[in-house]
């Protein structure tokens, strides 16, 4: 019981680190790793969602398409970014960028950092589930290498909506979960206060995902967490991205897509 309690406490510490208010966000990594990032705006259907950003950027000799969930740091920016919770427009902008990346043969780099898609009436009216589902197919079929990296929080379908790819890398203190611990506690215990227990039960740390074979690599963070040294965190993230991208670029695209299919196909397979 005590053991269980201390494991739960350690897991919760990971959750808090993943959500640390000073933690570097997507744009901090983007500006540190890439040159010449040009942000594209709008889904060409309804609006521009500031919770998901993206555009072409230079990584060494090549252009990549960056798609990222972006949280805000100041109160005003948090509101502008909707706390990193995207509406359908964000996912449809991402879809636009995925298609564009395919057209120009830019590899896709996706940075995940969201507690989930935005639970709002407007999001439902404009088909948030439809937008996410469509991205799952588009990412599964995109004929370019895709590397996904979880920076802080990976929350539910909202994370997966930009999170399907050939590699899943996780920053050391990031988390990725079917539901945020608060939501899980509310659903299973009908008591949000059980969030610490829920966090432990969900197996949501980077180490958990690596153990389950879902994450390919854990990217080390500076001592105490990425917020202690942005440069060091970005260097480690950049190095991991370059290494995995180089491997994927050497694979013929048909094989790449077959391997991507099998990567998901075998999760939960019975034979």
């Amino acid at each position, binding site marked *: 019981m005590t053991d269980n309690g201390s494991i739960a406490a350690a897991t919760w510490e990971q959750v808090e680190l993943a959500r640390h208010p000073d933690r570097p966000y997507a744009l901090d990594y983007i500006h540190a790793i890439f040159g010449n990032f040009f942000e594209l705006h709008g889904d060409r259907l309804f609006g521009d969602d500031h919770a998901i950003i993206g555009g072409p950027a230079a990584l060494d000799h090549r252009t990549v398409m960056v798609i990222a969930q972006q949280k805000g740091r100041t109160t005003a920016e948090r509101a502008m970014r909707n706390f990193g919770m995207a509406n359908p427009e964000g996912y449809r902008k991402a879809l636009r960028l995925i298609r564009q990346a395919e057209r120009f043969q830019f590899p896709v780099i996706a940075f995940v950092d969201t507690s989930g*898609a*935005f*639970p*709002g*009436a407007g*999001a*439902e*009216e*404009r*088909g*948030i*589930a*439809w937008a*996410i*589902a*469509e991205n*799952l*197919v588009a990412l*599964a*079929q995109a004929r370019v290498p895709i590397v996904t990296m979880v920076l802080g929080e990976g929350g*539910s*379908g909202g994370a*997966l*909506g930009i999170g*399907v790819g050939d590699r899943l890398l996780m920053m050391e203190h990031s988390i*990725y*979960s*079917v*539901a945020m611990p608060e*939501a*899980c506690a509310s*659903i*299973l*215990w009908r008591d949000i206060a059980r969030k610490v*227990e*829920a966090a432990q*039960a*969900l*197996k*949501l740390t980077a180490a*958990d*995902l690596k153990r*389950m074979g*879902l994450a390919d690599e854990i990217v080390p963070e500076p001592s105490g967490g990425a917020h202690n040294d942005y440069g060091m965190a970005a260097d480690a993230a950049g190095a991991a991205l370059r290494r995995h991208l180089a491997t994927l670029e050497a694979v013929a695209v048909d094989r790449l897509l077959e391997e*991507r*299919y099998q990567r*998901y*196909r075998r*999760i*939960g*397979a*019975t034979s």
Partner: protein
Amino acid sequence: MFRPKTRYVALPSPRAGVGEEIDRLKCPKCDTSLEPARLTTSLGVCYRCGYHFRLRAPERIAMLVEPGSFHEEDQQITATDALGFKDSQPYARRIEQSRASTGVNEAVTWGEGVLAGHPLVIVCLDFAFMGGSMGAATGEKITNGIERALHRRLPLLVISASGGARMQEGMLSLMQMAKTAAALGRLGAAGIPYVSLLTDPTMGGVTASFASLADVILAEPGAMIGFAGARVIQQATYETLPEGFQTAEFLWQHGMIDLVVPRPELPAVLRQLLDLYVKNEAAKDFELEPQANASAPTPAVRG
């Protein structure tokens, strides 16, 4: 998330066995006390107000396919507790209880059958088994169904009823969204038609993956369909939700589904769709250029 009150109506069917005892039921919408026999005749639709009761997967399948034509697959596949999950009780025990109370091993039933002369693959979720939630075994069975449709070039019908992802399987559950979507991507690319029927309720990761990825999306009247639940939305935004929010009719108004179909009309609607979408079938009925194609090889679509 899952409403504890169950509103199932068990209908006699070739698979379930005729003559099951159904107590006098009360319609949750109009409060009418319903006669089981009449409710059975009306396919589980309240004959007073049109309320559609939830159905078990075998009943739904039996309503649609030609008698004796359905061959279930993967009956033995069952959920496993990969994470050692425990909430108020261990997940392993929940699985056992669900299996005992529902008589099935998972929240989905699939197989091949014949509907209006068309062989097809039917995948049907069962809300009675842990709220129809999608765990790894659920996702595996759904994907097996999709892949069968792909390999046999058969049209696919998926009937959804689910609260969403299964919390107790954590990320293994979430990844079933990607798995089923990837399989449907292949089905779509192969030009094989997929019809999705959304029934009460279809929520969360199920709506945000296979359920909404169809060529034609149908829904039952009054079915609750969405991503986030109304309670979650209200807690997060304090918004006043509009009348009929997240009902099938609301989604139709917003352009998310093609048609709201009352249960008794479903077989005719599916027949029409299959006639139109299954290659060579629509053309055959119109007898286009019968002589010109006389020497062409017989299409292999019909079984």
